[in-house]
């Protein structure tokens, strides 16, 4: 955040792509993320079997069973094809991480804009609530919330929103406090624009580049969170695959079937790594400007 009152960039969306391409780190990260997005989108085409179809249990990677079914990554204890489960799992994991992050952003950004622009008692109330929520160790908060509301997709979105929105709110509030005294805000005020217009049309577009970096990092955290909740048995309900849950179901068999836990772990780690690299690369190009 520079103090100089730079003119608002004309169109942030158009500026993002060249920025990604100018950083090799961001390109690698973006490539990994893009790969998983493609896998998620094309899951019905890529996956050789249904993720819940029970074929032959405990096939090793690259094995062919008696009926001639071939398994690239082997099968699990219920005879489900691991590759199909990872591919469909990508769809489920990405869908819920993006949904949860988007929902957290919607709430966090609105709260941050209101708190930072309007100040006064609204700011006090919003900031106090944020401080209280943020004083919980994050996973403890998730465990408590999920055990109260129950484990389901929508409750995970709800829990992530509750736990992450305060952090987003703090960042947005900080940016708004920095931007609210700029000339273009003052001129909009003199024009008689409504507070809502100023917050969303004048201020928010100037915060987007910073928020995109934060969103990449946060999407990584949320992916980890959904994986961890799945691993702890508090995540998305079975039998549809999610990577964390797959590890939880099969970790007891690690001595004779380690591939069952290794591949889902590789999947989630590579996705989060991609998101972190993308954020890192974007931040560095951001600093260069």
């Amino acid at each position, binding site marked *: 955040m520079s103090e100089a009152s730079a003119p608002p960039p004309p169109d942030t969306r158009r500026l993002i792509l060249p920025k990604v391409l100018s950083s090799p780190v961001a390109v690698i990260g973006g490539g990994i993320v893009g790969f998983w997005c493609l896998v998620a989108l094309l899951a019905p085409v890529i996956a050789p079997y249904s993720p819940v179809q029970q074929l032959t249990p405990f096939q090793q990677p690259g094995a062919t069973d008696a009926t001639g079914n071939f398994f690239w990554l082997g099968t699990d204890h219920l005879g489900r094809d691991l590759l199909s489960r990872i591919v469909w799992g990508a769809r489920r994991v990405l869908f819920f991480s993006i949904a949860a992050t988007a929902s957290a952003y919607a709430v966090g950004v609105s709260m941050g804009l209101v708190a930072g622009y309007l100040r006064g008692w609204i700011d006090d109330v919003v900031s*106090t609530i944020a*401080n*209280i929520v943020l*004083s*919980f*160790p*994050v*996973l*403890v908060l998730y*465990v*408590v*919330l*999920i*055990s*109260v509301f129950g484990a389901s997709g929508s409750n995970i979105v709800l829990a992530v929103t509750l736990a992450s929105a305060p952090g987003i709110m703090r960042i947005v509030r900080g940016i708004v406090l920095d931007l609210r005294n700029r000339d273009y805000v003052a001129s909009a005020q003199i024009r008689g624009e409504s507070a809502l217009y100023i917050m969303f049309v004048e201020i928010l577009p100037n915060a987007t580049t910073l928020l995109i970096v934060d969103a990449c990092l946060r999407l*990584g955290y949320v992916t*980890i969170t959904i*994986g*961890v909740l799945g*691993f*702890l*048995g*508090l995540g998305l309900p079975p039998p549809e695959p999610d990577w*964390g849950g797959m*590890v939880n179901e099969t*970790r007891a068999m*690690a*001595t004779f079937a*380690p591939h069952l*836990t*290794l591949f889902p*772990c*590789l999947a*989630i*780690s590579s996705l*989060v*790594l991609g*998101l*972190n*690299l993308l954020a*890192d690369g974007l931040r560095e190009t951001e600093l260069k400007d």
Partner: protein
Amino acid sequence: MMLATMLAVSVLTFLLLEVNGDSVVVKVLGPYSTDEQRALWLTANGYDEPAFLRYFTWLGDVLQGDFGDSIRYRAPVADVLWPRLTNTAILAGVVFAIMVPLSIAAGVLAGMNEGGATDRIISTFSILTTSIPEFASAVFLSFVFVLSLGWFPATSTMTGGFQPIQLVMPAMVLVLFGFGYVARMMRASMAEVMQSNYIRTAVLRGLPFHRVILRHGLRNALIAPFTVIVLQINWLLSGVIVVEFFFAYRGFGALLLEASLTQDIKLLQACAMVSVVVAVATQAIADIGYGFLNPRVRFT
């Protein structure tokens, strides 16, 4: 402020877990209990009173160290909680004793020469370790050190008394995950200090390089990461849940998860309260310590 936060959190915990007496009784007596049994239990345990009265009764008990009885263990929560907390404290202590010096050293080495080969290796390694969720690194490390090499035991149940070797795997996972974050903070801070005028002066005065780093650089570079390091205690409270569950270590994190999975309300409440008290206390330590290290903030 600290007290206010804790009070607010206690209200929140209470609201979330206990305000609805009907759902509590189902968890205590099970789904097959009759309506009559439930009504009797609710009256016997004071659930007929209004929620805010119950809150103050509960808070008063908690302040006296009485967290109520655990449904699962059929024992006072306090008796279950303290040994578990001790176990986690041991694990956390080991993790800190390894992680802090290691990540500071790595951060200093990387930040001393920004953009150099050492910096690139350390930075890449730290972004890699922060990207791997704890349960995944537990799987990877177990595969290497337990299944392939057979160096360490697969679980850390400590059934045959306290065995330090069983601490290795859980500690390694936690160190690895926390390392990257602290190292990156330390690196950023060190790189900033290295560009300052007093370092340039010290170098130009012809002091030996290690003296410049140790006497002038390190002391100032440690100020900013101090907060991050103290706040790692807070993060560790999350990390231990995963790691203790994975390695079946009988600590606080595993207890919290168990309380959640078995819907043991009193136990879950106590665990949540303890973790929040620890978290708020570390926040306070971080603030006070920061003011102590950096006199500039004391006047603002």
